[in-house]
Structure formats: C-alpha cells, structure tokens
C-alpha cells in the first residue's frame, strides 16, 4: 500500500513538473519575438484573400451566442438604449479629408449589404448569422481616407472591469474587403444590446475578436503604436495575434 502511495505521489509530482516547465516556457520573454514570427508568416501567406462562404437562410443559428465582455453598462451607453439609439452618433475621423458624423438613420439609408456568413470564434466554436449593414469599404469612401491612413481603428462603448476601453483595428485591405461590414441587423432584426447594438463590425474572413461590437467612433491612423497597449486592439493587448485570419 505504501508503495502504491509512493508511486502515485511520484507520478503526481512528475505531472506537476510538466505544467511548471510549460508555464515557465510560456512566460519566457526571449521566446516571444521568435514565436510571433509565425504571425508574420501567417499574414504573408494567408493574408486577406478570397471570400468567406455565403450560407442559406436555413443555416442560420437562431440562438446566436454572446461571447465577449458584458453588454456595456456605462451611463453613456445606457442612455443610448433609453433613447432607442435615436441619439446615437458615429463620428469618423483621423487621417481623412472629410471627417463626418453619422446618425443611425443615415447609416440605415446606406445599409445595402446582406450576407449570411459564419462567425468563427478564436475559442473554436462557430455560428451562422444573417447580417445586414454597410459595406465598410464604400462607407469609408464617404470620409475620403488620406493616403497615409493604413489602419482603421474601432472604439467601442464597452469597457472591462478595470475600466479599459474595448477597441480593435483592421488594415486597409481588411477594411475594404467586400464582405467586411458595419452591421446593423442580425437575423432580420436590429442588433440587440447583447450582440453589439446599434453598430458593430463583421469581418467574416477573420476570427470573431476582430469584429468590434458597440462601435462608438472610428478613426483612421497610420499606426496604432500609441493607442492603449499599442498592439492594435483590446485582445491584441491581452496577447492575441493582431492577424486573426487563423
């Protein structure tokens, strides 16, 4: 019996050692730039090509999951809900020749893109939704980006528990991809608060964490070094790859 206990505790110790080694390697800073070189290769080779599959109405997942931070609960967002988003304004600025602010009614008038696409979460699950909204590429033409604009940054109404604002970014190729959309409707109804009302991003050629919800304002920039953590997005600042095509 004693021997069994000894064997069992030795195995347990060895197994605990396993996690110690992999945890240590994971936190070993010199490895990080080497590991991140794979992201550069992924982006160079997979990049932003082709188009995501279009599904049929019967393929839609009715119970579209919510997997993000909580629905914003800041007074600014709550008052928007109270006004039924009639007070919503979307400023688009930064490196553009014609900065503008749009009302939801103006955005609705421009919403001509319908697509049923799959949303792939970084966690590994996926869901199909019918989206209606504006092609981001044609929308950006209205504000006339300057030649030096290389990224589009989307700021959200959402904040995490520490107060950090949620944000994300796309490069111009991703932004003008024909399927990249500022979405207003999900499955035939205006997007509800949990799913990113009133305006959210949908990028079917990228993982879901690039599809910023509850968009508050949009800015075109030449780089994102000086924005929050400097990695180009909330999840990127938390360690996820900026290139989310894989």
């Amino acid at each position, binding site marked *: 019996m004693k021997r069994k206990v000894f064997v069992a505790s030795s195995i347990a110790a060895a197994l605990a050692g*396993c996690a110690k080694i992999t945890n240590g390697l994971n936190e070993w800073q010199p490895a990080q730039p080497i590991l991140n070189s*794979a992201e550069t290769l992924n982006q160079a080779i*997979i*990049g932003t090509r082709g188009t995501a*599959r279009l599904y049929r109405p019967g393929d839609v*997942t009715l119970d579209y999951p919510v997997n993000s931070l909580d629905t914003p609960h800041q007074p600014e967002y709550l008052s928007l809900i109270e006004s039924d988003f009639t007070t919503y304004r979307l400023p688009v600025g930064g490196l553009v020749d014609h900065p503008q602010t749009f009302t939801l009614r103006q955005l609705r008038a421009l919403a001509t893109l319908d697509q049923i696409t799959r949303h*792939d979460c970084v*966690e590994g699950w996926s869901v199909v939704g019918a989206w209606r909204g504006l092609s981001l590429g044609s929308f950006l033409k209205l504000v006339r980006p300057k030649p030096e604009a290389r990224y589009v940054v989307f700021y959200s109404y959402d904040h995490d528990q520490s107060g950090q604002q949620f944000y994300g970014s796309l490069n111009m190729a991703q932004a003008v991809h024909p399927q990249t959309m500022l979405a207003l409707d999900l499955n035939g109804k205006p997007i509800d608060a949990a799913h990113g009302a009133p305006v959210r991003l949908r990028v079917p050629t990228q993982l879901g964490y690039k599809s910023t919800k509850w968009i508050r304002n949009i800015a075109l920039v030449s780089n994102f070094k000086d924005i929050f953590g400097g990695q180009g997005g909330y999840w990127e600042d938390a360690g996820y790859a900026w290139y989310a*095509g*894989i």
Partner: protein
Amino acid sequence: MDATAGSSAPLPRARSSEAGVVVRRHSLVTRTTHWVVFIAMIVLTMSGLQIFNAAPYLDASDKSDPARRVLSLDGRTTPAGSVGVTTILGHELTTTHLLGYTDDGQGGETARGFPGWITFPGYQDLAGGRRWHFFFGWVLVLAGAVYLIWGIGRGELSLLILRPSDLPKLWPMQAYYLRLRKEPPDHGKYNPLQKAGYTLVLFVLTPFVIVTGLVLAPGFDAVAQPIVWLLGGRQFARTWHFVAMLAFIGFFFGHVFLVVATGFVNNMRSMILGTYRLGKHEGTGP
C-alpha cells in the same frame, strides 16, 4: 559519390543479408529533421489540447451544433462536489481529476477539458497556446519540407515509399513480428511494414493534419471553400484535426514500441549518431 557519405569516413554499403555489417543508416539531415519534428509534434499536441480546452467539445457539423456533438469534456457541480464528465457519442463517463474537472496547471483543480500536465502552457492561456501552436506548425512544415526535398534529391524517399512489389511482403513481415514466422522476408533499408507506416504518416496523415488545421482558419477558408466542404465543414474539420492528433499518438506509441523491441541501442544510435548494424535479411537498398 557514395549516397551514404556523411561527416566522417564513408562506411561500406552493405548488400542485402550482410548481417552484422555496420552502415551509415541515417544522414545528418534525416537525424536533425527527425528530432526537430519530434519536438514540434510534442509542442503541437500539447498546445493543441490547450486550444481545444477553450471550447472542450467537438461537433460533426459545419457550425457548432450541440445536436451533432461527438465529444465533450464538462465540469459539473453536484451535491457531492465537482465532477468531470466525458461524453463520447452520447455515452457519459465520469472522468473527475482526469478530464472535464481536472488539474488547472497551477496546483489546483478546475473545470477544464484536458489537465494542465498535458497542455502547453499548463494553465489556461488560449493566446499563449496559439502562439506555440502556430510557431511549431511552421517548424513542422519547414523541417518536413527540408526532409522531403533532401530525400527526393538523395534518393532516400525512394527507399522509404511503399511500392507495389512490397505488398506481397507485408503479411510475411507482420507474421514475423507476431512470431508466426521465424524469419522476416528479405528487404532493403526499410522493411515492408516500415514502408507502409512511414508512407502513411508522411503522405497521408501529415498532409491531413495540416489541412484540417488550416481549415479552422477563416482566412484560409476564404480561399479553400471546396476543401472545407469536403471535410464536412469547419467544426467537422476540428473533429478531424483531433482524430489526426490521436492517430499521431497511436503512431508514436507503435513507433517507440518497435524501436525498443527491434534493438533499442542499435536503433537509437542510428537516429543519433547515424550508424547501424544490419540485421538478418536487412539491406540498404529499396
């Protein structure tokens, strides 16, 4: 030029049945890529289980669909405490402390799919797991490409690939392993079963694991919709990717068993130093 020439003095090439002759079996390229791929496969498997843990279930469908779930590892709270439940094709197994509710990689236990001692890193860190997985995915692909290109150029692959003429020797070789036959059939550098195994792993299983992994990437799907369709959809591909990982683990144990059973020291020496003492009925040709 002797095709087996290595860093030191070239050793003689043995003819078939020159048992006992020491030959240079594995070149520096073969040995290096073998061990690089070995390390890559360990990290890929462990970081893959880390990634799996972020959604610890598999569906045989295009999009997530609980009605078509083939595997799930769940942690459940019961009046008696937390339990881990593994559901395979609808059959529930209690797997507390191993799967579903298990080692959190930090000295405790929590609800998670695979335990911390088999994931990379041990604690739950999807972003970290993805970094290791994608980097070593490239290591696997590049080391594999070096081996294949070199192997074609130096004729190594023609010794390894299963040929129609090997097929009649498959059963005699298996019978020898099963001790139903005293002697193995005469063969070249690799015996017929080795050729079958390595051909399957190199040209079926490895491409399969790479493609099923790539299909999980929305950026790849956008240029490869027919491949996604062939695999039964994105979530189905995730299931196939998992199955391919199990097949690699099966190969690994079979491989190691045979390394041990057919002359451990001789085999290990051939893959570390390159030299190998030929056995009966063993040659160096195709």
